[in-house]
């Protein structure tokens, strides 16, 4: 090819095509805001109703949302819950979860890319992954205790192994869903194996991978609480919930449950959903699942 600038005289692209076409942004409408408020208010109202009913009929102090709120404020001001501040419990839980989940994400994505890429590796590993999928998170307790003894590492292991399974399954499916023509095109343009993995298979499998992260996050988060309850970690939100049985501090337990729900919601709304918006939706791809 000549190195002189292309002297071909080109007519502009077909009319009617604007330089940048953006999907119309949704405006927050009044009815939308009402629905959002109702989606929070209705469950709260049900909770309140149940609390009042139970307290009257069974004569036990079932915490209302207001009771829980007061207790939350007290805890935030530094009152102790099961020997530690709420901050300590929250921090420990988050740290365990972050370590376990990061392990699951790293291992899950790498193995998923490999299994999706190599039919041999997939056939070798899929029976194991399928079996892992059938094991409920709590069933790992004896295994984890044997491996790591009683303590936070046991919980971390349970989180990692539980979150790993959906991530690896979805990443594998994602890689296999990448159109072979993309691989041909990439090879034709001189891509080596590393480029194929990082710049074709990884982004190409992202719709599936993100739903894997979602499911992995949810199951990992659930098993964090369960893991702390069963394995005596000494601190953590799940541990506190379990201990409140003995201290009869049901309000404290409800605060912990509320915090667990809130964090799950925040991660979903402010991390996972925006991640999906910035990638899959912007690329014009359909979400997986």
């Amino acid at each position, binding site marked *: 090819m000549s190195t002189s*600038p292309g002297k071909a005289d080109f007519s502009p692209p077909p009319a009617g095509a604007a330089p940048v076409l953006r999907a119309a942004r949704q405006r927050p409408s009044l009815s939308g805001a009402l629905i959002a408020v109702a989606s929070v208010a209705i469950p709260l109202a049900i909770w309140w109703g149940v609390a009042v009913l139970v307290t009257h009929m069974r004569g036990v102090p079932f915490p209302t949302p207001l009771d829980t709120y007061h207790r939350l404020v007290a805890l935030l001001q530094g009152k102790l819950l099961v020997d530690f501040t709420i901050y300590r419990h929250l921090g420990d839980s988050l740290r365990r979860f972050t370590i376990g989940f990061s392990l699951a994400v790293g291992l899950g994505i790498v193995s998923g890319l490999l299994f999706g890429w190599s039919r041999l590796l997939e056939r070798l590993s899929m029976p194991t992954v399928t079996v892992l999928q059938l094991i409920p998170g709590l069933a790992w307790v004896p295994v984890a205790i044997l491996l790591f003894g009683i303590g936070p590492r046991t919980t971390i292991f349970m989180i990692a192994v539980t979150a790993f399974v959906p991530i690896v399954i979805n990443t594998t499916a994602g890689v296999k869903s990448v159109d072979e023509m993309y691989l041909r095109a990439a090879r034709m343009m*001189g891509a080596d194996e590393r480029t194929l993995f990082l710049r074709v298979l990884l982004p190409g499998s992202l719709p599936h991978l993100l739903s894997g992260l979602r499911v992995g996050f949810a199951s990992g988060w659930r098993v964090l609480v369960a893991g702390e309850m069963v394995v005596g970690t000494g601190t953590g939100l799940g541990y506190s919930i379990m201990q409140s049985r003995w201290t009869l501090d049901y309000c404290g337990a409800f605060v912990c449950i509320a915090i667990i729900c809130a964090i799950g919601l925040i991660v979903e709304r402010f991390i996972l959903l925006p991640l999906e918006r910035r990638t899959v939706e912007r690329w014009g791809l359909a979400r997986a699942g």
Partner: protein
Amino acid sequence: MGARKSRVIVMIELHQVSKVFHNEETGQHVQALRDVSLQIEENEFVCLLGPSGCGKSTLLNLVAGFDRPSGGRVLFDREPVRTPGPDRGVVFQEPTLFPWLTCEQNVAFGLRNLNIEPQRRRGLVRRFLTLVGLDSFARARPHQLSGGMKQRVALARVLALNPRALLMDEPFGALDAQTRDRLQDELLRIWETHRKTVLFVTHNVEEAVYLADRVAVLAPAPDSIIADLPISIPRPRDRFSPEIREATMALMAVLANLPCCVLPSQSEEVGQTVRLQEGG
């Protein structure tokens, strides 16, 4: 033309090439090509014409290096073809732009693989997007473009790699007639400035006659190339000229003896997908 070919270099050569696809599940096999021989000279524009299912894509994929022949030899620039590579730019029927990259990133993809430094890369990207008239869409994503625009980007991304040959598999087959005519003209204009060897697969007779220096007609196996006609109509050509019509009629007469589309030989069901990575 004749004067330029004082030193003829054969760029693409197929020598008695056969290709049989095996379907592992049913155990059946399909003979897609049998004993096909074809030579394409440097800077020649050859159209490969034939009914659907006669093995045109199979032939092109062998030259591209996506597949290996079951028999015979496929040479590119006198070397046996082993793998795909940027010396043979392929434009597929579907644009196959990476949806996760913008237009300019799509064009830059191959340049990055060639380790061209960023400064020069940006220049080349701009130049080739301009060449196909899409410089103002550099930051757009493929899904925001029309089919014709996507094919222009697909062309730009291989031209930017300065390939020795362009392999085009019905690249305008999915476009409406008007867009197709436009893109044909643009392709010819680019080809006039950046001379390249072109192997252009189509089942459209007018398209073949309008574009090609030579039209090779492929018949389904066990037949192979049943006609190989030079189209010596001077360029630039007029689509509606009597010469074009005449050549079109002659080719249609050849094609009239062939079935309009071909069922796979020796089996009713054909496994369509063979995972690419297992071949290489």
